[in-house]
């Protein structure tokens, strides 16, 4: 395991592995203008609030937008808003300024409309790109790395190949002093007793169990019941929900769990010490990518059958064990585990090698394609009240 990576040091001390300029379309109607700016300034990535332009009850969403802007892979931020919505850009700009990160604002109505805003947006984005170019890249200790861990597009191979391989890689990363965070509490229903034993304290164990229970309730309100096991899952070989959950659990490795990080209307919980963490990340891929961005992860390990989730802020390394679905989109092929020609340890080594290259600047399989859709996900506050979710 290598001990260093190449990073960009931010004014608040955090270190990124990419030097992106982020355009946030605070209102969905600013999306087109954000895209038009990006067409002329290719160094930009875009996050759009597709949820609503209204503030009330959406504090969690605003926190995620702010967290995404504060992600260490972001060098500078351009905030776009239409001017008639109620989310005040100052709410997002202030914490970015406080972190010492360059931020520019453009309010479209006040700025004489779409075309003028595109022209000005391009100028501001170019200014941010020039500022970013002055940030040197330098070796950084592995202890400054936070890796997101997620599964998606799961199939039979996931629980046997990609999840165990990533789990061992995660253990090696934690042992080397890095931090990892895995999420999807709904996927861990049935794993509570194992997770309790891994929790560093009874308080963390209780928090973990309570949050899994809340997530179960959230997705099983009568009339909106979510499919926790599909027929396809079962035909593929999964017999019970516990089995599915244990497959998903593999990707979290075996090291002690320091805490469960939450993003709430009150704020974002981030790791206090190196180690293995869980988070409240949704099992829905797009939203989880933004959640991981807001938590400050620089890179995500994503286990899959053969799909291709991506995120514009945090590079996603795709690990698949399904030989039939390996395409040029997959970064690490661990299908040798399924054909009994590769051990889980060897596969974990391949995962770590790829991670090592990506954190040193090499692009992931589809990173250079550039565009990746970004969903901002937040818990429905009406539902939170309904299930009596415990406030922080």
């Amino acid at each position, binding site marked *: 395991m290598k001990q260093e990576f190449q990073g960009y040091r931010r004014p608040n001390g955090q270190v990124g592995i990419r030097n992106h300029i982020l355009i946030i379309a605070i209102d969905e109607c600013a999306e087109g203008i954000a895209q038009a700016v990006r067409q002329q300034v290719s160094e930009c990535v875009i996050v759009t609030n597709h949820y609503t332009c209204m503030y009330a009850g959406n504090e969690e969403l605003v926190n995620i937008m702010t967290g995404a802007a504060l992600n260490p892979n972001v060098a500078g931020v351009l905030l776009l808003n239409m001017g008639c919505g109620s989310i005040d850009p100052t709410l997002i700009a202030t914490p970015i300024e406080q972190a010492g990160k360059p931020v520019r604002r453009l309010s479209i109505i006040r700025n004489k409309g779409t075309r003028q805003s595109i022209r000005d947006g391009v100028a501001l984005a170019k200014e941010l790109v020039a500022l970013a170019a002055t940030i040197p890249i330098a070796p950084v200790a592995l202890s400054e790395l936070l890796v997101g861990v997620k599964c998606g597009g799961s199939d039979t191979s996931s629980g046997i190949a990609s999840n165990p391989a990533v789990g061992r890689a995660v253990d090696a990363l934690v042992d080397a002093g890095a931090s990892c965070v895995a999420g999807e509490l709904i996927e861990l229903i049935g794993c509570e007793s194992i997770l309790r034993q891994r929790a560093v304290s009874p308080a963390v164990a209780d928090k973990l169990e309570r949050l899994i229970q809340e997530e179960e309730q959230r997705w099983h309100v009568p009339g909106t019941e979510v499919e926790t096991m599909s027929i396809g899952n079962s*035909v593929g*070989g999964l*017999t019970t929900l516990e089995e599915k959950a244990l497959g998903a659990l593999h990707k979290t490795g075996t090291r002690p769990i320091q805490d469960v990080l939450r993003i709430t209307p009150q704020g974002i919980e981030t790791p206090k010490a190196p180690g293995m963490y869980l988070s409240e990340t949704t099992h829905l891929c797009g939203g989880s990518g933004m959640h991981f961005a807001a938590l400050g992860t620089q890179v995500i390990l994503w286990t899959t059958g053969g799909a291709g989730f991506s995120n514009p802020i945090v590079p996603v390394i795709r690990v698949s064990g399904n030989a039939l679905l390996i395409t040029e989109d997959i970064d690490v092929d661990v299908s040798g585990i399924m054909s009994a020609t590769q051990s889980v340890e060897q596969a974990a080594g391949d995962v770590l090698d790829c991670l090592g290259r990506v954190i040193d600047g090499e692009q992931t399989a589809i990173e250079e394609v550039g565009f990746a859709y970004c969903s901002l996900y937040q818990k429905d506050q009406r539902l939170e009240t309904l299930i009596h979710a415990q406030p922080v």
Partner: protein
Amino acid sequence: MTVKAIRLAQQDNVATLLSDALKHQAVDVIDDKNRLVGRYQALQAIPFGNKMALHAIASGQPVSKAGHAIGVAISAIPAGELVHVQNVRSQRLDIPPAIIGQIIDQMRIETE
């Protein structure tokens, strides 16, 4: 060619098939370090990704995969038999009986 199955943890009483096994076909069981741990005979067709019993599992006994209980046997399962929805139940959240029926039909699982 011999069919292979992987036993993910030493205490497991099931192994996962790495390719389809036909009825009566020999199955080589390996551990997670690719070491052969035994040769079994599939008592019925077991598709890729599904589980085969490594020992006789009594009714009411937990089924263990990757070192953890994934459910409880609802009938006696002899070594070599398919371990799945027809003979195992979740202890947490059951699949509705109608869906279990559909899975058994779709997979053409042999049941007595």
